[in-house]
């Protein structure tokens, strides 16, 4: 259960990014590779826990799953794989150590609203 550590790091990262800005975070977009070793549901739960009573409380966590992708030397092309038990090309069966996607644990974007503007319109 290292998702709690990951969620804390995410919180710190966002707080550092937004330091000094008067904004409300609406949503946080992450990319999560199947090979990142992080369980999505556990991360969502942990994020809720660590953001309680912070300015990020209630921010939506949007997690995009990224499947495993390899470069197959035989087919000379990138291939997306279905599972995580093998790095074999689904077309020709060749094993590849060249992983092109699926290890992401990435904060992609933040959707924020400026607080002042919200007061004016609110």
């Amino acid at each position, binding site marked *: *259960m*290292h998702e709690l*550590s*990951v969620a804390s*790091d*995410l919180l*710190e*990262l966002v707080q550092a*990014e937004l330091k000094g800005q008067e*904004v409300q975070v*609406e*949503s946080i977009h*992450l990319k999560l590779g199947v*090979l*990142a*070793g*992080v369980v999505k549901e556990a991360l969502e739960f942990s994020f809720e826990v660590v953001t309680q009573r912070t300015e990020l409380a209630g921010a939506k966590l949007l997690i995009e799953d990224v499947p495993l992708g390899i470069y197959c030397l035989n087919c000379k092309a990138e291939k997306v794989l279905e599972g*995580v*038990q*093998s*790095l*074999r090309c689904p077309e020709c069966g060749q*094993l*590849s*150590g060249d*992983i092109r996607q699926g*290890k992401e*644990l*990435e*904060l*992609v*974007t*933040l*959707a*924020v*609203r*400026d607080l002042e*503007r919200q007061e004016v*319109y*609110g």
Partner: protein
Amino acid sequence: MADGTVLVPPRILELRQNILKKNDLLARDLRQRFAEAGVYVLNLVSGPGAGKTRLLQRTLTELAPEFHMATLVGDLATQNDARRLQESGTTVRQIETGTLCHLEAEMVASYVQDWNLAEIDLLFIENVGNLVCPSSYDLGEDGRVVLFSTTDGEDKPLKYPTLINSADLAIISKLDLAEAAEFDHAAMHRALREMRPDIKILELSAKTGEGLEAWYSHLRSSIEAKKEASHVSGNPR
């Protein structure tokens, strides 16, 4: 809108950052320090009970005449593993993580802080017994070693693909129990290579000593290479 307010769409801030950036940066600093000092660093990962401590105990004892070695050993609680390893006469420090299921670069950095790294040839980091969480955390190591024992199922590597994919060397331990456990060597090798085609595999028994010579010669050549590299890059010890 009825009340005349305009819904402003949120501003989108592009960040594109690894969430574990803090750990990765610390690990990079550590790797740099280890490189300058010419210390070869191995991160040992396995489930509980695969034989990490037993293998280290014997390795530390038998290589003590050749190398200066140090070990950081991570556990949730107790100093037991450190005590076992200290019998080798080498430097050992226990990291009690409390509730944390893995070691992070920050802990390694603080525990090696007052060591003169230049005096160390080989640093073992025995991670917390866990096949999941340690995989995401770079500790600045040169190589990651995963241990499975012959009493583990041959398909166990398939259940922990993230860790296998991050490992450089797989050790199959407790070779002395292979026959009793009806261990299928080929199936285990196949399972490992499905997720890490070029992984190096060593089979050994820390009890009988079988296979240890290959492990030692792997360590000797890695230590040698690390020292060479540190001299070449103009960092005299």
